[in-house]
Structures are given as C-alpha cells and as structure tokens.
C-alpha cells in the first residue's frame, strides 16, 4: 500500500514537472484565454499554429478556427475546454488530455447550437461531454482513448445493474486509469453527430436521458459498447459502423429509436458480445443493417413493438436470440451462414414471418418462393443455459444437437417462421463466395500422392 502511494506520488511529480516547465516557457495559453475574453460576441478568432494550454473557457458566441496544427494540452485538473455558451464554432483543434479518472471530459459543451468540427481529442478519460446541451453539431470529431487494456479479463462482466448506475461517481483512489466514453450526452436533445470516429474507449457514443438525437456515419471501434442508448427517445442511428467492440449497439430502456443502415461487424471476442442488443426497448425500428461476424448478431430481451426488417445477419455464431419479448415483427431478414441462425424462448406473440434462413430445408410446392415448411426456433438451448450457464460448453456439440432434436421433433415450436423465403438468385449471389483453391489443390495432390505411395509401399514390402 505504501509502495503504491509512493509510486503514485512520484508519478504525479513526473507528470507535473515537465508541464510546469512548459507553462513557464509559453505564455500563449494565457493569451489564448485572454484573447477569448477580450473578443466581442460573434467574433472569429484564428488560432495560429502552435501549442497551447488549457483550461480554456468559452462563455460567449465565438468562432475559433485553428490555422494549422493547433494543440491544446491540459496541465490542470479541470476540463481542457469548456463551452458554456450558445452558437460557438470550434474548428480544427487537437486536444491532448492526460488527466486520469476525472469526472469531467476533455471537452464539455453546456450550450446550444454549437458546432465542433474536425476536432481531435486524445484522452485518458471521456472525450466530449454534452450536458443539458441541445441542437449542437459534432462533425468529424475524433476521439482516441489512450488507456491501455489491463488484460483480457477486464470488461468481461456484463451486468445490467452495474451500468445502470454508471453515471454515478467512480472511485478516484485507484491509480489505474479507467476508460471514459468517447462522446457522452446527458440530458441533451436534438443534437447531430456525424462522421465522428471513436477508438478504444469505454462506450463510443453514450446517450442518456436524451431525445431526438441523430447519429449518422459515425465509426466506433475497439471499445466496450459502440453506441449506448440509455433511456432515450427518438434517437436515430443511421449508417454508423461498430467494429470489434464488446457490443456494437446497446439500446436500453429506450423507445422510438430508428436503427437503419448500420454495420456491426466482428463483435465476437468477448463472451458477452453482441452486434445489437435491445433490452427493454419499445416501438423501435431496426432495418437494413448489416450484422456480420458477431458472437450474437441481434439480441432482444423484454422488448415490444420492434420492427426488425431487411437486415442481413451473416457469419455470426448465433444470428439472433430472442427472449421474453412480445409483439415484435421480424420480416425480410436474411440469415446466412450463422452457426445457429436463431434461438428464441418466451416470445410467442412475436410475428416472425417471411425471412430467409439459409439452413432451412425448404419446400416450395406452389412456386411462390415461400417455403411450405416452417422454420422453427428451438427454445431448448436458451432455456437450459438460462438455468445453468455452464452448459454453454455444449454449444453445437454433436450430442447436444442430437438431444435438441429429440426435444423438438413433432412437438412444434411455438416460435417459428411460417412462411420462410426460398433462396432466390439475389440471395444466392450474395451467398456465393469463391476462393482460389490452388493452395488446397496442391495440398490435396500431395496428400493423395503421399497416401497412395504409402499404401503401395506398405502393402508391397515384405
């Protein structure tokens, strides 16, 4: 314990010393704040190339435009940049913030109709916070989290109750830096977030108690949750990408969300990974998304009135999981080469009709491209592993597949697609993927010749 305190003390000194030296060398930070204070409302300040120091506070409508490479470092314990005004424009600035475990983000926006454009935030905590801020635009904001993963076991837990209370204070005593969120909205409405990129943070874009926000063409990777909606209404997620996060998009206690045309790829390394997770969500729309290579593509729990339409779920370990939900509509989705296409339980009132399942042995007698045999979803695995999670080890074990079939044969699952689509040429074209097989061919030839020679010699030899 004493050693740890000693370490942290020496670390603090090591951090403060160079910062103090540069503060002496450069008076420019002070002058930037002074310049801002002097400027009249509505004025444009061009910041020449160079290094500046925070904290900077903007309290009136201004336009701050970087001329060249403007870098704002932050030796203080406050946020590097606070916008506590309306109609502020901030362009082209790079913020480098090395504070750890701070409640305050590197940039805090508390006003309305502000524009942050081409801003790069290099942070050990949260990148940008919007607090009670409405109708702002964040365009091309890049947030790069600098906290390294401690080990693979961190973030493994997925406890709903734990992140419900996430916005409350975190313990500050630990020296270990905790990741913050990329862009964090709380009580903020009607903001537009477009073309932003977030890497290696806690939650990429986090929205809580906010409504009417639009997220378009953003990109979040290598974080915990890509897009995390907590108690929001009327949020639009359009054409965003989530890649290699624990979960691509996490929608909780949310209603009237529109999730359209997004891509959620490769959320599969963590045992709690999903492409999209919906928990306690009402009356929302999930359409035309590409959900590929995730542990579970689309997971729905305790949700009602969701329309899931025209999504492509491919190459996930489990395409969709559906549990304790009611009155959702699933149609026109394509399930391609998932290890298991769908698992469902306790969701008998869901309308799952007219989807394409590539592992269905369909039969189309009347030629209407709809199979006359239904596609049934098996509740057995979900039920069993719900009771005893340890049995997940039997996932796709040959004996388990056998057992599952024993339990469903003839019984007829209540959760089924009564009119699954037959493969059409369009579907097959998307399905076909040719690999050039020279390597395999040569290996095959070697194996074939080798075994033949071996057999010949083995039999012949006396």
């Amino acid at each position: 314990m004493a050693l740890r305190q000693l370490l942290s003390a020496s670390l603090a000194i090591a951090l403060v010393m160079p910062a103090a030296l540069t503060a002496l060398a450069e008076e420019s930070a002070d002058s930037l704040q002074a310049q801002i204070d002097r400027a009249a409302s509505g004025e444009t300040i061009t910041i020449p190339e160079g290094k500046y120091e925070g904290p900077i506070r903007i309290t009136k409508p201004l336009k701050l435009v970087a001329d060249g490479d403007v870098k704002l470092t932050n030796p203080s314990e406050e946020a590097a940049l606070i916008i506590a005004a309306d109609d502020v424009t901030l362009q082209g600035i790079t913020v480098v913030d090395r504070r750890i475990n701070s409640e305050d983000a590197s940039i805090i926006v508390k006003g309305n109709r502000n524009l942050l454009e081409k801003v790069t935030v290099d942070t050990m905590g949260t990148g940008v916070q919007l607090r009670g801020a409405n109708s702002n635009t964040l365009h091309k904001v890049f947030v790069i989290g600098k906290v390294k993963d401690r080990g693979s076991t961190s973030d493994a837990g997925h406890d709903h109750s734990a992140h419900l209370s996430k916005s409350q204070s975190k313990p500050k005593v630990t020296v270990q830096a905790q990741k913050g969120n990329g862009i964090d909205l709380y009580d903020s409405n009607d903001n537009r977030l477009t073309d932003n990129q977030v890497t290696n943070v806690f939650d990429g874009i986090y929205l809580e108690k906010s409504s009417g926000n639009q997220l378009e063409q953003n990109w979040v990777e290598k974080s915990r949750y890509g897009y995390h909606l907590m108690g929001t209404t009327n949020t639009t997620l359009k054409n965003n990408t989530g890649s290699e996060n624990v979960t691509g998009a996490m929608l909780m206690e949310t209603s009237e969300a529109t999730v359209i045309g997004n891509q959620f790829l490769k959320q599969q390394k963590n045992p709690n990974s999903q492409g999209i997770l919906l928990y306690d969500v009402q009356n929302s729309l999930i359409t035309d998304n590409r959900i590929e290579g995730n542990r579970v593509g689309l997971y729905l729990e305790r949700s009602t009135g969701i329309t899931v339409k025209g999504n492509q779920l491919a190459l996930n370990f489990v395409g969709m999981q559906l549990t304790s939900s009611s009155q959702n509509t699933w149609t026109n989705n394509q399930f391609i080469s998932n290890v298991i296409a769908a698992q469902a339980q306790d969701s008998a009132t869901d309308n799952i009709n007219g989807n394409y399942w590539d592992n269905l042995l369909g039969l189309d007698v009347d030629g209407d491209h709809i199979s006359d045999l239904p596609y049934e979803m098996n509740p057995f695995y979900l039920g069993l592993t719900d009771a005893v999670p340890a049995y997940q080890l039997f996932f796709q074990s040959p004996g388990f597949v056998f057992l599952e079939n024993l339990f469903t044969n003839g019984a007829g699952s209540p959760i089924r697609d009564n009119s699954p689509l037959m493969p059409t040429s369009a579907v097959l074209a998307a399905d076909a993927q040719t690999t050039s097989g020279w390597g395999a061919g040569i290996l095959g030839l070697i194996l074939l010749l080798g075994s033949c020679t071996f057999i010949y010699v083995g039999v012949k030899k006396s």
Partner: protein
Amino acid sequence: MHINLIAKREVKVGFRNPWAYSFMALFSLFSLGLLVIQSQSYMKGYTYTTGTMLNLILYLLPLMTMLLSSFSLTAEKEEGSWQLLSTYAMTTSSFLIGKYVGQALVLIAIVSFGYGISGVAGLLLGKSFAFSTLLFLLVFSICLILLFLGIAMLIGALCRNRWQALTMGVSIWFFYILAWPTLLISLLSFVPYTWIKPLLQIVTFFNPAEFVRVYSVTRLGGGAIFGPEYYKWIYWIDSALGDVCFVALCLLWISATLFIATRAWERR
C-alpha cells in the same frame, strides 16, 4: 526394434484388410460431401459450415477408428497370431505401441486420401476448400484418430473377439459422441448448483471428442460462444501455452489408454 517390426507388419496387414478400403471409400465420399457443403457457403473462422463439418467428422471418425483398430487387435487373438508372437522375446507394451503406430499410419493414410481427393476435386471443379481449412480439418482429424486409437487399443485388449469389440466400440461411441450432454445434464441435476461447472470442466478432460471440439472451436475464433463461464479457460486455450498444454493433454491421454491396455492385455 520390435515396435518398428510390429508397426511395419501392421501397416501391411492393415492395407490388405478390405475394411480399410471400404472405410477409405466412405471417408472419401464424406470428404467430397463436405466440399459440396462448403462450396455453398463461407469458410473463414467459425461459421455454420465449419461447425457442421466439425460435427460430421466427430460423428464418423471416432467410430471408424475404434472399429477398425480394435478389430485388428482382436483378430490377433482370434487368428492365433498373438500366441505365435508371444513365443518371441517381446514385451506386451512394445507389441501394443507397434500396433498403435501401425494403425495410426493406416488411418492417417485413409484420411489423407479422402481429403486429398476432395482437394484435387475442388481444384478441378473450381470450387475448392481454402488451404487453411483443408489443413485445419486434416489436423483436427488426425487429433481425433490418435486419441480414439488409444481407446481402440483398450477395447481390443479387453475384448475376446470382433463381436465384443463391435459392441463395446459402438457403446463407447454412443456414450462419448451422442449421449454425452444428455447423460451429463441429467446426472449433474443431482449435484449442488455450484458443483456443476467444475464437474463439467473436469469430465470434459475425460472425453477426447469434447476437448478436441472445444479446442478447435476456440482456435477457429469461436471461443466466446461458450459464454462468460469459460472466459478464462478460452482465453488461456487461445494463448501459446494453450497449444503446448493441448498437445500434453493428448499425449497424456494416449499414454494412459495404452498403459491400461497393456495391463489389460497382460491379464488375459
């Protein structure tokens, strides 16, 4: 020296056995079947296709291995050649290890022939396996063969004739491959909840089909599907040490079964 001689003899006898060729035909057909499955779908990582392939191989290969090799041992008893061999100064263990090596070579040749045919056929038809997939399937199959060959030696040592060996082989196959989850789920329902996971982990080490499957799925990148319960396990398997331990586990299995087989053989 004796091991070498026995192995050579085993290879020779093995390839004169019509059973070997019928299994070779079956496996080639099966391997071509896999080619047809895969040409319709995606092959990288753990997908529907690779999952199905693993399961099909798990159904066929252990049974094939156990029948072919245990028959070869009981044949020695039935045809009296063991009585002849036992007049020479040769230990039981070198006899059984020789049989093991010989049978392993025969079975690997059969499997190689099957995959070889589908590799070449894939090239000719223009819809081929990926190189890595073919190699992966080959290694997976060889692992299964080597592990179940140990069990086959044990069956051969315990049984008096082919009929007994057939019954026992099929029973073990049914127990390990088909009935395994069913039996475990029903048996574990009698133990306290907190014991289930540790017990399940321990017994998995006693089923080669299961631990090879878990290892393969993890190496295909699908380890996360086993859930948070096995996170540390899977992470560990995926590390470099995981490979070493997997090989060690396989060697342990093979030597344990061979050791017990030797004891059983000597007791007869």
